[in-house]
């Protein structure tokens, strides 16, 4: 499946909507195991994405992804800024070669791993990105992929980021980065897959 720049725009605007609607919920999740700012940080970052996308004149997939990366890097303020920013920057670079959605998401995942030095099972956003990337490659991606990833992330013990400080208390909690990434991929289903 190929991703067009129009689809990418709609996808990211939809993501902004979901993050904004769930801002308080994301911050509550973060309050339990982190510093409680994930909702407001991501709402501010995706608002900046929305503004940036409204002024993008270069109608290419690469430009949409790159502007998204720059807005997130500049405006989120927390660790999710460099992490989401690195994902979209890696996708923008990959978009020079291909528009294949599964290849692009895989590139984004690698960008996050590189920036955060984390991997599968550390209870981070990677525990959402990895199963989605795998399902996209295998042609099995659906809402069920996201739902299952959220179930799987709960029992994990956090090994990276602020949540790792609370150790065993992170077990049973949802990781806010995995949840916000879940919104990103729900938006992808609604705007691109469906």
């Amino acid at each position, binding site marked *: 499946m190929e991703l067009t720049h129009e689809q990418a725009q709609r996808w990211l605007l939809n993501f902004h909507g979901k993050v904004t609607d769930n801002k308080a919920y994301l911050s509550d999740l973060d309050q339990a195991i982190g510093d409680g700012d994930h909702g407001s*940080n991501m709402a501010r970052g995706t608002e900046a994405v929305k503004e940036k996308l409204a002024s993008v004149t270069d109608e290419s997939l690469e430009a949409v992804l790159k502007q998204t990366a720059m807005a997130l890097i*500049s405006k989120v*303020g927390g*660790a999710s800024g*460099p992490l989401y920013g*690195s994902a979209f920057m890696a996708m923008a670079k990959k978009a020079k070669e291909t528009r294949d959605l599964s290849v692009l998401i895989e590139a984004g995942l690698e960008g996050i791993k590189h920036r*955060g030095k984390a991997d599968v099972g550390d209870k981070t956003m990677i525990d959402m990105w990895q199963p989605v990337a795998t399902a996209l490659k295998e042609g099995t991606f659906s809402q069920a992929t996201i739902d299952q990833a959220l179930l799987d992330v709960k029992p994990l013990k956090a090994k990276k*980021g602020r949540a790792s400080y609370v150790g065993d208390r992170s077990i049973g909690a949802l990781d806010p980065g995995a949840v916000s990434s879940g919104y990103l991929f729900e938006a992808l289903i609604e705007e691109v897959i469906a």
Partner: protein
Amino acid sequence: MSLGIVIASHVDHIAEGVYRLLKESAPDVSITYAGGTDDGEVGSSYALIEAAIEQNDSDTLYCFYDLGSAKMTLEMVSEMTDKDVTIIDAAFIEGAYTACALIQGGYKQTDIDAQLAPLKVK
């Protein structure tokens, strides 16, 4: 040109406070700092950290940070700049203070690295 020092904190006042502390013992070292987000909130700003790196008089920089997102933002800027940037995973204030005092004292980079090694905590 000797080493320069960059301070990156989540809070503007912390960055400024560490800068003041360092300047006490290292008045001749080029030290720049960035703290908080663009809006003065708690967090990290790509633009402010980029400015601290670019505005430092030195082209070879040792960067000290308080928490994870400041480090990740430093890494992103370091990948974009032409300067030689090293991010030091040392205890934030102790590490920066040690580096500054030694640069001021005219020590070589290898001596500074040796003194920073036991201060690495992250």
